[in-house]
């Protein structure tokens, strides 16, 4: 049980990275981005391309760091993939969402177009990598360390938690301390007043997509390291992503973090009672319950 909770925290922290991006984008442009899960897969696959092709080709050695399942190649691929997916997210905004925004399109139209974007990303992955599950390091044994209370955790998982925690702290500092971060919060509060104050809101929107895309990529790669890569991974993330976002009150990044952890733990712990194939249903049922009983989420309702 404790072990399942720990696995839930690991999975939940990955979901949190996606949910934070989703909630950031929603906070500013107010539409449900159904392509967010596939931005996560895109990150995982860009990193795969780097690790197995690009970096191998330049001759970066394929060694591991200590007990971890990856080495220099992943260390380089990780930030590169974050930037690449940030660029993809910004490009999607430029060629798709910005035009719809300019026409003052309804949020449903925006959401539908993001569904289209999701299909495109997923099909591109299918075309280049096929439909099978892949690993960053196929065939490698991944031993777990044994902790007291009979908890077995892989070193990779500990590192995942450290990475997620660091990214969240960095994001917090960015939003609280930098001029752009404050402008992002201001724009989420009141876009018209932001414009009136001289804030270049189009630039803020661009930065928001970049941040959301980068965090999504990080989440996707970490999932790939923890479990495996699959073209439909992002699609399967969508329900937990939205459940986490709604639970944590849409627009609230700290809420998304908590929401992700709760959903992750609930999904993993449920496997003690249910068949693991029902895991996605747990997030779905939780989402329905939240929408029925607390539609504004745990941090909503004050204003």
């Amino acid at each position, binding site marked *: 049980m404790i072990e399942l909770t720990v696995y839930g925290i690991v999975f939940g922290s990955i979901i949190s990275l996606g949910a934070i991006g989703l909630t950031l984008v929603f906070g500013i442009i107010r539409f449900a981005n159904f392509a967010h899960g596939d931005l996560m897969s895109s990150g995982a696959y860009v990193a795969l391309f780097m690790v197995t092709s690009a970096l191998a080709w330049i001759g970066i050695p394929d060694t591991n760091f200590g007990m971890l399942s990856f080495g220099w190649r992943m260390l380089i691929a990780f930030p590169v993939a974050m930037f690449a997916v940030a660029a993809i997210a910004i490009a999607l905004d430029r060629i798709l969402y910005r035009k719809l925004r300019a026409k003052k399109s309804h949020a449903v139209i925006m959401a539908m177009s993001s569904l289209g974007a999701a299909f495109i990303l997923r099909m591109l992955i299918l075309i280049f990598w096929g439909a099978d599950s892949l690993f960053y390091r196929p065939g490698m044994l991944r031993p777990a360390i044994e902790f007291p209370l009979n908890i077995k955790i892989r070193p990779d998982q500990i590192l995942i938690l450290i990475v997620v925690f660091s990214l969240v702290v960095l994001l917090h500092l960015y939003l609280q301390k930098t*001029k752009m971060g404050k402008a992002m919060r*201001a724009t989420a509060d009141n876009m*018209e007043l932001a414009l009136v104050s001289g804030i270049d809101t189009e630039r803020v929107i661009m930065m928001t997509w970049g941040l959301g895309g980068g965090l999504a990529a990080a989440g996707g790669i970490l999932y790939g390291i923890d479990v495996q890569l699959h073209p439909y991974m992002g699609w399967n993330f969508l329900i937990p992503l939205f459940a986490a976002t709604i639970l944590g009150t849409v627009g609230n990044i700290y809420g998304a973090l908590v929401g992700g952890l709760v959903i992750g733990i609930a999904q993993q712990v449920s496997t003690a009672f249910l068949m693991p194939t029902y895991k996605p249903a747990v997030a779905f049922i939780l989402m329905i319950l939240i929408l029925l009983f607390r539609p504004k989420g745990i941090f909503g309702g004050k*204003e």
Partner: protein
Amino acid sequence: MTILTAENITAGYTTEVNILTDVNIRLESGQIVSVIGPNGAGKSTLLKSIFGILKPVKGKIRLKNEDITGLKPNNVAQKGISYVPQVDNVFPSLTIQENLEMGAFIRDDDFSRRLNEIYELFPVLGERKKQKAGHLSGGQRQMVAMGRALMVDPTVLLLDEPSAGLAPNLVEMIFEKIISINKTGVSMIIVEQNAREALKMADYGYVLAMGRNVLDDTGDSLLANEEVGRLYLGG
């Protein structure tokens, strides 16, 4: 010297219906111009047209001698005009200080001196700078909104109904602040429901009705005008 003019402004929110028709307004340097008139006269629409939130169908906005018609609000702000909307004029989840910093977004220099000047003008804001603006009372919100607009050291300040929804004693306080801001050299256009008070402090006043100019004169003359008194000042 004339600092801002709106010439023959025709504007509306849809292409079919114009709220304003051929409205003219002139602001002289250092003056307070008050725009009064009944509800729906187009007073707020006029400010939005000047600030670029609304693109006029016809007419010209000039700042000094520069044509600024059709510029986006963030560009108008860069030209030295600030605007305080009537509602939703603070960032509720940001602290008072952050609200003021956002007012200075277009400034790349060190604005800490200006920040202190704002805190001197509104001491209560300085005492609560870490508080979220969403938790403030109406009068304090209005101060945050005006403080935010003043952060860029504007040459022209546009105020949309600064006294709306405030208790009478606060109305007086806000008008006193407006006069002291004006004394620092900021020219202003004020749109007000509270017509009598607005004309009292105005150097010049305009009466709008049904989206057109009806009358304009010095503030004192409009106050003394019988027709204005009967129609717009409540007897």
